[in-house]
């Protein structure tokens, strides 16, 4: 009987732990007043995407690994969270942000929502080499990246960009479930700068918990350069996505 009473107590109080439309409207208003152009919103838990109905003024991210996630061009991240939701693990999210060197500002409580600014202290972006407005899912997370056709050698898929040298960051992965098909071979991404090979990244089939969003970082001399990203594989019927930018460190 006590189990029944406990269950009913949980059921009856669950709505009190969840935000209302009014909470979201207040969060949206707070962000309109406080947020800058280099800000973005990170939802927590990442599934709490009802927020997208209300907070369209800033880029919204639903990254799952806040320690490893890239936020290029984002100086301040607004952690919009549901602190009382069951199994929400907000503490772990905050700890992950701390581990990457981010520092929190003052938390604002808006009903069942919490809004907390985090200065990321990230590097300054010098050039976006792919369109940050285009997004695709890789490893179940929507990521700003540009879809590139995979070609068979000697005719690889090709993405051209011009931008400033500095620390080059390349991220790449196969979109959708085909990333997990183990019978397929790896996708190879070759990076050329001003016609010269710089580095290569292999994107093998994803075997969880290994991430399917592969990373390559390399140094490129200062000044403007032409970047070429060549994408090749034996089997080409997979959507492939590349994100690349340069930063000052």
């Amino acid at each position: 009987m006590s189990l029944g009473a406990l269950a009913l107590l949980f059921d009856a109080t669950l709505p009190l732990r969840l935000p209302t439309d009014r909470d979201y409207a207040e969060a949206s208003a707070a962000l309109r007043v406080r947020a800058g152009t280099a800000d973005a919103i990170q939802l927590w838990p990442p599934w709490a995407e009802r927020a997208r109905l209300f907070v369209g003024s800033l880029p919204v991210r639903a990254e799952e690994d806040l320690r490893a996630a890239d936020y290029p061009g984002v100086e301040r991240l607004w952690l919009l969270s549901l602190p009382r939701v069951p199994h929400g693990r907000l503490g772990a999210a905050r700890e992950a942000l701390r581990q990457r060197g981010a520092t929190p500002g003052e938390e604002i409580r808006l009903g069942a929502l919490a809004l907390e600014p985090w200065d990321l202290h990230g590097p300054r972006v010098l050039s976006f080499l792919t369109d940050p407005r285009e997004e695709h899912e890789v490893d179940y997370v929507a990521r700003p990246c540009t879809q590139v056709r995979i070609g068979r050698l000697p005719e690889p898929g090709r993405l051209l960009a011009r931008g400033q040298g500095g620390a080059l960051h390349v991220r790449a992965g196969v979109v959708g479930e085909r990333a997990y098909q183990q019978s397929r071979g790896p996708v190879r991404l070759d990076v050329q700068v001003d016609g010269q090979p710089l580095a290569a990244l292999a994107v093998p089939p994803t075997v969880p918990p290994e991430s399917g969003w592969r990373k390559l970082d390399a140094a490129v001399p200062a000044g403007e350069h032409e970047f070429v990203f060549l994408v090749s594989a034996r089997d080409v019927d997979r959507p492939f996505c590349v994100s690349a930018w340069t930063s000052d460190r």
Partner: protein
Amino acid sequence: MSRRLPLALAALTFAALFATQSGVGFVRDEGYYFEAAKSYEQWLQLLFRAPAAALRDTERYWSVNFEHPGLAKLLFAVSHLVFTTWLRWLPDALGWRVPGFVFAALLTYWLAVLGAERSRATAVLAPALFWAAERTFFHGHLACFDVPICALTAGVGVAWARAIGVLGAPAPTPRRHGVFLGGVFGCALAVKHNAWLLPPVLLVHGLLLPAPLRRRALFTLPWLLLGPVVLFVAWPLLWHQPARHVSDWISFHTHHVHYAWYYLGRELRGPPFPIFYPLVLLALVLPLPQVALFAAAGAKLLWDFAHRALSPLRLLELGLAGGAILPFMLRTTPVFGGIKHWLAFIALLSPEAAHLLARSAELAAGAGVPRLRALLVAAAAALLPGLWQIAHVHPYGTSAYGEIAGGIPGAASLGMQRQYWSNNVTAVLPWLNAHAPRGARVFFHEVNYESYRAYQQAGMLRPDIQYASGPGDAQYAAVQWHREFRDREPETWNAFGTRTPATGLYLDETPQVVVYARPGLPGAP
């Protein structure tokens, strides 16, 4: 005990399902079964018009959905033919679904019969414990096979128990009970292949019985040979080239695809699956009191079995429950579909769980609380959370999670399958009907074409709204949240040029169906 109480409970089940069916969306599988039932109905009409032609052309009409035996779909077709085509009493979908309600009522009846062996209170509580959860309640509404095979598993158990003389009055005419057993088993075979597991369970049960009963059980077993005859009769596809069709049927299931399934933060894509997956899933989706009672029932049956203190009937319930779930703990059997494939596990534990609940009320009565009051309080404590779950979540049954998971949002945080089968789309159809311009193209994502047509036939979706194959050629998109289909939402953003939903179905904050509209169209944000 008279059959009046089980019959009354069965009627109540039918009425409850009938009264709450209107919002239940058409699940993906139903779309295929509706199409099959349409084809079989044409065959029935041909049978009445030109029997010889119908007997000759079985393959033409019965090849649709060859991978499942015919009985359930034949009943869907008969019901639609009678109540929709001839009498025009029911809309199409309801016409097809009525036999599902009948099977659900039969399940209630047989659980009540099993429960009644303990007490009148157990007879009422056994089916109540099974149905007082949104997952089971939801499945009771569908023109599918999961509740029918669950009901027939219980039915075979009751028929077997009667035939060997461990349930009800001693059989005056054993042959009648044997024929009934063979018939019910044949119906089970003709509904779903799970039934092939029943003879081994009954054989083991018979071998474990005391000598006189064992002898009777072993003499009863041959009646099961009627089963394949019923299967053959109820599945006209087998009437021509039976070997080929049986081979196709077996081949489909031995090579069944493993759909990706989200479980505790990881996608299960293929064997080996976690051994305790079915039990963990039950613990997470059912209301807390049922979890506790079913766990206690299973433990009590196992304990008594280990101590040789099980009556033949309780031994049978334990065997049937185990037979329903053990195949899904082999680590290789496909595990998609929530709990639907092992519903018989909790159904066959229900009488014992109900008995434990009634016993706890009696203990309270022994402490001075009036017996009826103690029973009512215990029943309320056990059933109210489940009734709350139904009131709160229905008709979105594939999304329901219990208190151990932390409800639906807790399950989302734990990384559990959000929904399946696309039926939740019913929540956004009224919005689409109200906003989409005439002839608008809508990307329905997981809703297959058959279900889309069924929504239009049922009047739930405007007939002019067109089915788009993807966001690229759509004006609106109703994207269903599935971990394995996460790529479709960013694809919609890129195609539509917006990341702001127009509306959606959010259950306790969790996105289930998210609707996007191209900017400038009615309803666009």
